[in-house]
């Protein structure tokens, strides 16, 4: 591990966003704007069952009555929702049977991103669902997984092949009425990943979805649904990148996780959407609703996220601990540099008895950025003998950035224990000089110190992701030494 860590630090020599290229592929797009016709267009394009269209239309009706939330510690210019393209897909002639039929330009894109869709992925033991703009391009290893009864496919495919499962669970954790962006997503989502792990099956490989925005002026609205049946286990990873563009682009995703009795789901994210230029121009607006429910007794859901990208991040991966003795964890590193803004955290809703949650949040702010932790711990009356431990640390680089912590605690019984700890620190001149004196230049020194600071969270990531995440932390903070 140490060897790897070091080579990462070595590799980090460039400060620019590496994934800012645009792929020249033929794209099929819907006209700009949002109305019922567009929603019907998307639904027809995807050959969806009636219930899905219903769900979309109800969501749209609800969304029109809602207002964009303004309680976050974010400064966002008004978004013109009629100026966005809601559906863009790489043009394809027919269903893809094998990789040979995928547009070579597309394959090149994923090569550049460091994700090979080729069989070589087998070596690293990761099954990938690649989603470009709105559409799932290719899911690898579906067949291998099918032998175990595991369903891992795009959301559209799931709607076609497993409509009952989708119908039963979609919107059951994040109802379309949940919030403004969840409603928008429910109305216009184009694709995403679907995953079902049958009873008693431990998924032997990491499942992963790679999201890529490519087309201009488009929004990306994907929806992920993960169902872990009784006694099953799955580890799921999600990565995202986008080209560099001067305009802001909207990303509003929904992720729902259902863990039944004795099931465990690990969900890891490395979010690296384009953060905008150093001057704060462009970048992704990232409004994401992620929520899981520990539905059955003894179930477990853990969220691990490394957030380095996006101009604006609004995201609170949460968990409802409904089953008795269920457990949830939230581990987060959020980095903001230049003019990035992040308001992120979690909600832990304890309902079942003896439920336990842990929150470890590490915020790192540099440049002119603002980084906010916002978390809610709610212990319902029924959640007797429950426990929560929260630790929120903030690290400041320079004196023009901000770190904010808003913990909300709401405990309704007397047998539960809620703990909250928070610290704020700065990288000291002494630490930097100490590293410099050993031959490590200031940029690498910051990378080293920040990775050390975030270690507790990075250690929770699957190996494949940990390496990428460490690299990202260093790159994201380049140029932040004054």
């Amino acid at each position, binding site marked *: 591990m*140490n*060897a790897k860590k*070091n080579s990462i630090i070595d590799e980090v020599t460039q400060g620019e966003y590496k994934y800012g290229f645009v792929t020249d592929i033929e794209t099929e797009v819907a006209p700009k704007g949002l109305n019922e016709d567009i929603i019907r267009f998307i639904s027809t394009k995807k050959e969806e069952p009636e219930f899905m269209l219903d769900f979309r239309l109800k969501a749209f009706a609800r969304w029109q009555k809602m207002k964009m939330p303004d309680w976050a510690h974010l400064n966002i210019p008004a978004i013109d929702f009629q100026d966005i393209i809601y559906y863009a897909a790489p043009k394809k002639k027919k269903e893809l049977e094998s990789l040979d039929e995928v547009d070579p330009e597309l394959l090149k894109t994923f090569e550049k991103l460091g994700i090979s869709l080729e069989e070589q992925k087998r070596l690293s033991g990761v099954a990938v669902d690649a989603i470009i703009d709105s559409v799932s391009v290719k899911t690898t290893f579906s067949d291998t997984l099918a032998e175990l009864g595991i369903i891992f496919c795009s959301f559209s495919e799931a709607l076609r092949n497993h409509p009952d499962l989708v119908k039963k669970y979609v919107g059951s954790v994040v109802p379309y009425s949940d919030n403004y962006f969840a409603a928008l997503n429910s109305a216009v989502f184009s694709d995403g990943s679907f995953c079902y792990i049958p009873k008693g099956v431990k998924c032997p490989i990491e499942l992963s979805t790679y999201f890529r925005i490519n087309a201009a002026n488009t929004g990306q609205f994907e929806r992920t649904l993960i169902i872990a049946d009784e006694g099953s286990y799955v580890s799921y990873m999600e990565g995202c990148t986008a080209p560099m563009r001067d305009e802001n682009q909207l990303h509003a995703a929904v992720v729902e996780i259902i863990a039944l009795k004795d099931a465990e789901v690990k969900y890891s994210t490395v979010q690296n959407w384009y953060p905008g230029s150093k001057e704060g121009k462009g970048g992704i607006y990232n409004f994401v609703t992620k929520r899981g429910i520990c539905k059955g007794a003894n179930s477990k859901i853990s969220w691990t996220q490394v957030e380095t990208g996006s101009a604006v991040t609004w995201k609170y991966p949460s968990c409802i601990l409904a089953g008795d003795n269920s457990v949830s964890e939230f581990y987060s590193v959020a980095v903001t540099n230049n003019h990035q803004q992040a308001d992120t955290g979690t909600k832990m809703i304890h309902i079942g008895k003896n439920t336990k949650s842990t929150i470890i949040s590490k915020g790192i702010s540099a440049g002119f950025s603002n980084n906010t932790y916002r978390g809610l711990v709610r212990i319902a009356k029924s959640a007797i003998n429950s426990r929560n431990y929260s630790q929120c640390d903030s690290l400041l680089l320079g004196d023009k950035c901000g770190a904010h912590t808003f913990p909300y605690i709401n405990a309704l019984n007397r047998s539960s224990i809620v703990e909250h700890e928070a610290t704020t620190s700065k990288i000291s001149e002494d630490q930097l000089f100490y*590293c*410099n*004196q050993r*031959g490590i*230049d200031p940029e690498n020194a910051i990378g*080293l110190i920040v990775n050390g600071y975030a270690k507790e969270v990075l250690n929770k990531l699957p190996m494949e992701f940990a390496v990428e995440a460490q690299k990202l932390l260093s790159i994201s903070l380049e140029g932040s030494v004054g």
Partner: protein
Amino acid sequence: MLSIKNLKVSINEKEILKGLSLEVNAGEIHAIMGPNGTGKSTLASIIAGRDIFNVDSGEVIYKGKNLLEMAPEVRACDGIFLGFQYPVEIPGVSITNFLRTAMNEQRKYRGLEPITAKEFFAKMEEKKKLVEIHSKLTNRSVNEGFSGGEKKKNEIFQMAMLEPELAILDETDSGLDIDALKIVAKGVNSLRTENNAFIVITHYQRLLDYIVPDFVHVLYEGKIVKTGGKELAFELEEKGYEWLKN
């Protein structure tokens, strides 16, 4: 190797070094002694490149180059090592990871390939024995929760690993018990070659029982006021710094 001429240094307009000169050649050990607040640590910081001081005049030439124009990490890569008086903690960064990063940065500067994991760990084992440091310690985060003695040993361990050409030890002996002191001395003595040099800053003569210096300099009120051999240290110990005033 190192040539300091008439160096004047101030901080916040307060003059600390008032025309200091010092010549250090390869193969030599120089001890710098003197009472508190006379500029010993300032001298160490200036050589290492801490930028909180103003150099008002004078020059520092290292291996023929103007040292004052070099960034601290470049000086380190070029063979200068400072054993800190107060080593800082770097939470979450293991000593192993830290040293490997440092070593590879230095190798890169010298146009060498990164050290292989095997070579690196073999070297760790060898040097750990030399300074009698345990794996338990090297797996921990840099200096985090270390005792005073452990921190100083860690400095010597890093020096042993990085094999500098010019090592400055800033009061490495203060706060050490006699056993730790012997280990520090053993580290220095075993690393000594005809190609490298040491500047040992100390308050006490007792360190010099174990590290035998070629020269002892007395730094007093920002200047080197007396230079001699090992016997000067004994004289100082006996007569005290008051003696210098006359």
